[in-house]
């Protein structure tokens, strides 16, 4: 399974666009990229998943580099409610049930 590397923390002001990067240099062709976030006192919540190129939903967009070694989660117009830990996970469908969450990126949002 590919290992991921994320910055441990980030800071942004309300209204800014935030880009959270995730490096997965050993990603296999069978593996997908998943992003979750966890606000205090709650369990993680799924945000978005992708395999290649660009994926967008109502919450965020996900850009995946052409070689699939880097992905970037983009959050437009962050608010205080977006302050959370963001987890990038890479796995294939066969290993999905053994999903583990690393330390993630802690995003602080300032008013």
């Amino acid at each position, binding site marked *: 399974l590919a290992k991921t590397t994320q910055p441990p923390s980030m800071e942004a002001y309300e209204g800014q666009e935030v880009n959270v990067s995730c490096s997965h240099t050993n990603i296999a062709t069978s593996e*997908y990229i998943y992003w979750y976030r966890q606000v205090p006192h709650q369990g*993680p919540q799924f945000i978005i*998943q992708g395999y290649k190129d660009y994926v967008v939903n109502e919450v965020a967009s996900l850009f995946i580099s052409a070689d699939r070694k880097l992905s970037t989660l983009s959050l437009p117009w962050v608010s205080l409610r977006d302050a959370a830990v963001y987890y990038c996970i890479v796995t294939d469908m066969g290993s999905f049930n053994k999903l583990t969450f690393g330390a993630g990126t802690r995003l602080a949002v300032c008013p």
Partner: protein
Amino acid sequence: GGIITQTPKFLIGQEGQKLTLKCQQNFNHDTMYWYRQDSGKGLRLIYYSITENDLQKGDLSEGYDASREKKSSFSLTVTSAQKNEMAVFLCASGTGGRTGQLYFGEGSKLTVL
């Protein structure tokens, strides 16, 4: 929409005590999971179950037992509570890799005196 309900939200026990956490889901998901989260850290998988009466060990199963007697419920037992395992225990359910989505409960915080 569905919900994951974990009980109790807070559990206090004595060292060496056997303690049980319960989880119910009404999503009708086949797969359920138990994770442990230490303060400020990520989540580590303890057990998962792909169907009723199935149990699969995760990376952290030693010291824990699990039970899946019904599709909708999944219990986790700490067989002998230790002070170094004070943590939040999170239950989740999902449909596996098909959708990539896990749905989590709010967690149960374990304190060992």
